[in-house]
């Protein structure tokens, strides 16, 4: 059974159809990359999979581990093992970074009938993973993402992923705005988590990230549909030729 099976997915935001019949299958252990121009629906796909309620699914179905993902609330999808690394991580003043992650871990553990972790069990693990991501200890008790630099916010997303150990990790343009050092660190964090039980959906605009995280499959998303699929070499080809024959079909009025 595939880990994620998306069939004929149509989704709209405020009445505008963004996804127009998307099909995609991911198996555990695989890394898929989705590339495409701005406005093609990459972030919409990520948001739908994370169950953001402002995105309305009008047709199609999505199975996650054999269960209907579209029936799930965001917290249920997370507990089942879906993780979204946000393109724009949200600042939450007043909630400590470590406290937040521990609350999330315990919510997920509770869902699976496991005992909660106390701070003593949690902190050493958290700090160890922070070290891999070369994050400052000071960020432990700072409010979630508040006053973090762009790079710190993205690393913080990967840190949360490393702690929550999802089955499916969706990285929504995690590379945007990162300098090469931060990119390397983020990639190191992701690569450390690759394994036979986990799949990644890496959404990106640029080939650059894929130099560090080698995908098994690359898909090109244009105007709400996947128009081409291939191996890692496809990303390199796109770097040279752009988004291929379908690019001409992209309406000019899309936001830059």
């Amino acid at each position, binding site marked *: 059974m595939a880990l994620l099976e998306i069939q004929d997915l149509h989704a709209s935001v405020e009445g505008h159809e963004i996804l127009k019949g998307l099909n995609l299958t991911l198996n555990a252990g695989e890394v898929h990359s989705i590339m495409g121009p701005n406005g093609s629906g990459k972030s919409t796909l990520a948001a739908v999979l*994370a*169950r*953001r*309620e402002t995105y309305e699914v009008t047709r199609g179905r999505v199975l996650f581990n054999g269960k209907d993902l579209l029936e799930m*609330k*965001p*917290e249920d*999808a*997370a*507990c089942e093992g879906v*993780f*979204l690394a*946000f393109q724009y*991580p*949200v600042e*939450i*003043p*007043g*909630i400590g970074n470590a406290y*937040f*992650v521990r*609350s*999330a*871990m315990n*919510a*997920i553990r509770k*869902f699976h009938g496991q005992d909660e972790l106390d701070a003593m069990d949690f902190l050493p693990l958290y700090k160890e993973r922070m070290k891999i991501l070369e994050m400052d200890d000071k960020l432990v008790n700072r*409010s979630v993402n508040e006053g973090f630099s762009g790079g710190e916010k993205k690393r913080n997303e990967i840190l*949360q992923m490393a702690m*929550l150990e999802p089955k499916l990790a969706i990285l929504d343009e995690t590379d945007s705005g990162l300098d090469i050092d931060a990119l390397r660190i983020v990639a190191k964090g992701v690569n450390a988590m690759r394994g036979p039980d986990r799949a990644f959906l890496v959404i990106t605009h640029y080939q650059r990230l894929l130099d560090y995280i080698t995908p098994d499959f690359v898909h090109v998303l244009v105007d709400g549909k996947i128009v081409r699929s291939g191996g890692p070499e496809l990303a390199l080809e796109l770097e040279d030729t752009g988004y291929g024959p379908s690019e001409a079909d992209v309406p000019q009025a899309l936001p830059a």
Partner: protein
Amino acid sequence: MSTTANNTGNENAMATATEKLGTYLEAYGELIAERQERDPVWLRQLREDAWQRFHAKGFPTTHDEDWRFTNLAALAKTSFQRAVEGSVTVSAGQIEKFRVPGAGCRLVFVNGHFAPELTEIGDLPDTLEICSLERAIAKTMEGSEPNGSGSVGCAPEGIEQHLGRYADVRRDVFAALNTALWEDGAYLRIHRGAVIEQPIHLLYVSAGAGAAIMTHPRTLIVAEPTSHAAVIEDYVSIGEETAFSNAVTELVAGQDAVVSHFLVERENLAAFNVSTLRLELARGTNVSSHSILLGGGLVRNNVHPVLAGEGAECLINGLFVGAGRQHLDNYMLVEHAQPQCSSRQFYNGILDDHARGVFHGRIVVHKDAQKTDAKQTNRNLLLSDDARIDTKPQLEIYADDVKCTHGATIGQIEEEQLFYLRSRGIEETSARNLLLYAFAAECLDRMNDSPAREFVASLIGERLTDLAKNHQPAAPVAQVESAPVKEETQSWEEVG
């Protein structure tokens, strides 16, 4: 009985207000007769002046700028009775749940009367005097040699010097009413240089007496120079009956004293509570006022610090959390009278259902108060479309070299933040609760680590958990509206 009503706005409201002054007149008459022997002359005079003031002015209407957002018709309409001492018995078991863990001592008052059997004084250092104000004054009456300072309990010297000297009975009719009608309250004196580590808990209990009762607790706290102490003034109810607590506390901080005052309002939803905290800050003092309003139906929280000595610092910190039809009104009057003082006002409000909040922050900088640094921030979170906040800054500056800032925000829980938390596995109610708690925690962050802080943190946590539970998004608002819930007794909104 003299002068004319000086507020000629809404005649009906005035009529309602004056009509019921009779019950207060009766109470005053009784009290004066009972206390003929007990009250010293200066106190009788204080009562009489205050009574005249109250009687002349009556209860304010919404035409009074200081009461614009709070309609007192429901309060003025109710006939409150004086509570007869000992008419209601409260057991230690009944107040056990109100205990403040880590408090050094607890003074208990039931319906305004001192309850020695519930009071726990513990092992107090002899640098702290604490007792019932009424008893302290009785002591001044029996031993007429002022130098024979009492070896037991407390030495009442200085009461005459301070009591009623700060609360503004001219401007504030509730302070006047309290000054005329108070029967008891706490008296605290912290000796020069004394450091009292554990918080002092003053528990004011309203317990149903079959009729609507009124109490006018009066507290006097004298913190001598360089002393340190924390006091928790705590208003609670037993049962669901209506009561009116009209409290006045005068806190006098001597030079370089460091004092924290906590007001905790957690009475039942039928309670009327007006509390006035008058702080007098001498040179170099550092005084904090933390007001935590969680309960009560109609609550007015007056905080009036006067920075009367150079270099004094005052923190005026508060959190009010209202739901149902609660009305929580915060009136701050911060007076800078001397140079180089700083004041910080931070009030956070969370309002759900049809609750209404008011924040009126007035800062007065007198002519001599150069280099004043005054800041005011009021932040509000509205959880329903029917909740309402009125926030009003008011600056009066008569000095020319000052720094005064103010700001207010009103917002909702951000959907972005809610989704972020939920996307990590935290279910919606908990996520809401976390966000509410984070907002409220700004108020806790401004308190020093202490048992008092832990105590209020746990109260706030419980209150917000209830709020988040009751607050399943969108749907219930309509249900609340369709069910006519005690509309007649619980509406404080101005009509028309």
